[in-house]
């Protein structure tokens, strides 16, 4: 059923990673991504160990994590091909006009490892954090931007409302589709242009209903005294615990190690 759709890809489990403050996980992912681009040779070992430990700690099955890799497969293939073919250097193989260089192969491997680790690292965050926690973390981390008049609170409110309404609109799409099909609409046959044209009787009612919902929701929010982020308190404010400070410590140590390895040229 559409109602049971879980958004994002949160994997419910009781692990230390799940319990960490979402802000720590957000910063952690960022640090990890940066470290990936610092690595030369031995650094990759450090990155792999770090990632493996995190996966173990998260209690998320490894199969679940690698699911996300399918979506970047094409991107991965393209990067590899381009890196192999267009990096100048010591020639390994030459077939007609195509040359493959040693540097090219090395670069391709490095890039693909980076991409795969990046994907796994970031999905580890979304797997252990609910969408709500993520928006809260974003609001809190982007807080300083308020000083330059970036509507941080509004952005995070929009994101959480979108999360709330996606399943509702999906269900509605399904309903409209069935209603139009009952009247002879055809969403499945024809070429691509024909199919796009056939979507019109689906999209028009969907948009109208979305606007109506938005109007109702705005009214309901105003009726409950919503007047922006000013003077608002939070029911579930984010508070750092001891374990969060410890996690920050680990992150700093990890980052220092990565930079150290880079500086030493290892």
């Amino acid at each position, binding site marked *: 059923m559409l*109602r*049971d759709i879980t958004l994002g890809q949160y994997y419910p489990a009781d692990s230390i990673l799940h319990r960490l403050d979402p802000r720590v996980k957000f910063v952690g992912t960022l640090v990890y991504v940066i470290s990936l681009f610092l690595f030369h040779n031995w650094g990759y070992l450090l990155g792999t160990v770090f990632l493996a430990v995190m996966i173990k700690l998260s209690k998320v099955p490894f199969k679940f994590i690698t699911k996300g890799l399918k979506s970047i497969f094409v991107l991965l293939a393209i990067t590899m091909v381009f890196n192999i073919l267009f990096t100048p250097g010591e020639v390994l193989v030459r077939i007609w006009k195509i040359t493959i260089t040693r540097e090219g192969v090395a670069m391709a491997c490095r890039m693909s490892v980076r991409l795969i680790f990046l994907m796994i690292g970031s999905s580890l965050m979304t797997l252990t954090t609910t*969408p*709500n926690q993520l928006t809260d973390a974003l609001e809190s981390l982007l807080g300083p931007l308020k000083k330059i008049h970036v509507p941080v609170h509004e952005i995070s409110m929009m994101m*959480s*409302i979108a*999360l*709330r309404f996606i*399943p*509702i609109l999906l269900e509605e799409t399904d309903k409209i589709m069935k209603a139009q099909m009952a009247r002879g609409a055809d969403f499945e046959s024809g070429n691509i242009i024909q199919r796009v044209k056939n979507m019109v009787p689906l999209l028009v009612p969907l948009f109208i209903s979305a606007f109506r*919902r938005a109007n*109702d*929701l705005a*009214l*309901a*929010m*105003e*009726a*409950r*005294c*919503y*007047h922006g982020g000013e*003077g*608002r*308190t*939070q*029911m*579930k*404010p984010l508070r750092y615990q001891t374990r969060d400070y410890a996690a920050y410590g680990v992150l700093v140590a990890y980052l220092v190690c990565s930079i150290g390895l880079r500086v030493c040229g290892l």
Partner: protein
Amino acid sequence: MKSARMQKKAGNNVMGMIRAAGLGYEYLRYEEEGQEPEVTKAIEDVSLEIQKGQFIAVLGHNGSGKSTLAKHINALLVPTEGTMWVDDMKTTDEEDVWKIRQKAGMVFQNPDNQIIGNVVEEDVGFGPENLGVPTDEIWKRVEESLTATGMISYRAHSPNKLSGGQKQRVAIAGVMAMQPECIVLDEPTAMLDPNGRKEVLRAVRKLNEEKGVTVILITHYMEEVVFADRVFVMDNGKLVMQGTPREIFSEVEKLKELRLDVPQVTLLAYELRKNGVDLPEGILTIEELVNALCH
């Protein structure tokens, strides 16, 4: 100074918590492009008074202006004519708008379109968050109001997985968490099945009886009106009848003229009376009819 306050307090008791005097609201309706917009009166010259702790029902068929009236109580609309007072505050005073909305909460028709949170308890906490209530107090209020509406066991659920009646009860809990003195329900049961309707009504009546919250229930289901202390009937933007349910339902002919149904039992009693059976006027429940017929 002191006497003025005393007077105000005393005045409160006498004058009612919600008062409307000569209330009118008109809006422009745009037909086709290029045409002059047409002035439409949604409500016209409505005067009423509602005492604290009362259970009020507002009846009327579609387009009678009952929803427009409801939105005036909450200052979502401000009158173009006349005045509306909520707890001695005029709804036209902009600085009082938030205070009025805290005093008079509102529950809407569509249960999906008024739930903001992704988790039941977060949604109930939304109102208090906006009021700037401290965190600990928010949790206390959320628990209290979810218990009062019987939804406490669903606190960690996603609202998408609840039934219509349950969603409306969450919405009511969300309003209750703001600790209002009055709650306006704008056809809260129109989109629900009979069971959901009963659930919601039970929750509303409980709040009225146990917590003394003033309830203004807008509806077109006659069965829901029977328990009210006072009924207002609207037609074409005007307040055409008011009184106790018994008074209202004894005028079957007039209600029919307004295209409103009467409860089945009342209608049966009315027809029986017309055909010469000796029955009192304004019978509202099956029990009453049985008693009257047996004596």
